[in-house]
């Protein structure tokens, strides 16, 4: 996975980052609830370079390894009302297998001047 974050705030920006050969892509999630959620929240990814296939193949000709996965540049970001901390210290109202609660009312993702290189139908 590339970079990902879950932040209790109304705005987050990722910028001038380079992502290469990511399996799940990168993005961000916001934790925002109550009246603040109705005033809007923003995830901004800008001036990033994201590479799909590179000179480093997933299956080199010498057969030393072969790990083929779907690759993603961006993973869809979002805003939710609640989430779990990285190191839970008490029981949570969320099920064991969930890290977030319902989606917030607002939440817009705006992406500026991002560059995507060499994404193909099938991985190499």
């Amino acid at each position, binding site marked *: 996975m590339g970079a990902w974050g879950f932040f209790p705030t109304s705005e987050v920006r990722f910028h001038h980052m380079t992502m290469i050969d990511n399996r799940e892509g990168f993005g961000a999630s916001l934790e925002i609830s109550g009246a603040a959620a109705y005033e809007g929240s923003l995830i901004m990814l800008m001036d990033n370079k994201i590479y*799909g296939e590179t000179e480093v193949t997933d299956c080199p000709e010498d057969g030393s390894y072969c790990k083929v996965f*779907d690759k*993603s540049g961006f993973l*869809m*970001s979002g805003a939710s009302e609640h989430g779990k901390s990285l190191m839970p210290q008490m029981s*949570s*109202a*969320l*099920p*064991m297998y*969930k890290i*977030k*609660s*319902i*989606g917030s*009312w607002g939440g*817009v*993702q*705006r*992406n*500026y*001047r*991002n*560059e*995507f*290189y*060499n*994404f*193909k*139908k099938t991985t190499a």
Partner: protein
Amino acid sequence: MVEFYDSKFIDVDGDALSYIMDPNPGWANVKDCGNFPCTAPLNVLFTFTDSIFEGSRPRWATPDFQIIANNSGFAPYIDSCEPSEDMNAYVCEEEKLGVLLFESEDDDMKDRSMQPIYVSKQGTEMSNKLNSMMDHVWDGFYSGQIRMSRFGSIIEGSRGSVYDLTFTGTPAKKMRFLMNGLSRTMGATLRIAYPGAESRSIVKDGTIVEMNQWDEGLSQYGEIKQRFCGENRYIGVQNILEFYITANCTLHIQPRDAIQTLVRMEWTMAEFFADGGTTSFVDRLTASLGIHAS
């Protein structure tokens, strides 16, 4: 809604530009989404503005385009959208695409279901089936069975668009609506049929927006002309609320303490009391409604 500006795609195949997953069929269970999967993945909108393509590029490469989900209840009915099987999506050139958000503001917003809700554009076979938010609550060993009545629907808001929102459960008394979109000129008239005779008001910025003027020719309040966000009328007897919403405009629905009919009654005070006054009026009204005058 995800917005891209000034993106650059270098040697990106059309088939590889995105992939939009279908809702997981496994979500259709009591502890997650109920009888059918939650519908958010079917109602996402990606907008691309001033994009640049270099090297190998998609056949449809153009600076401004949109990508929407393979939603069989919506996407096939937008003329400018073409299916892309490998992306499990549709690629569109329609600037008036947006996302309509609405939610219950009643006290039972997390306890009572209104879904499925069908969003249908008049003049088309469109029927976008919506589910509410997934149940994310866990109460010890059991799921919370608490689901927020909040909905998102992809929508196309070209001039003259009229949508019916058909609730299979009783609509909430108080609701909030917002249309997200990039086009300043997009908008749509929304129609909601209510099962009861209680009228509804539209509130914008904390103020009730008065209904359109009574139209003697129609024998009801004047039709929606799509002149401003919040323009509305309530059609008595049929119990249909109609209102116009534009991009990035928030409206609220609240009950109006009135029962509307399709008859406008108007007398002078002298005429009213000369013909029996309140006693005769109440007698006739209760007789027409089939209820006792007491």
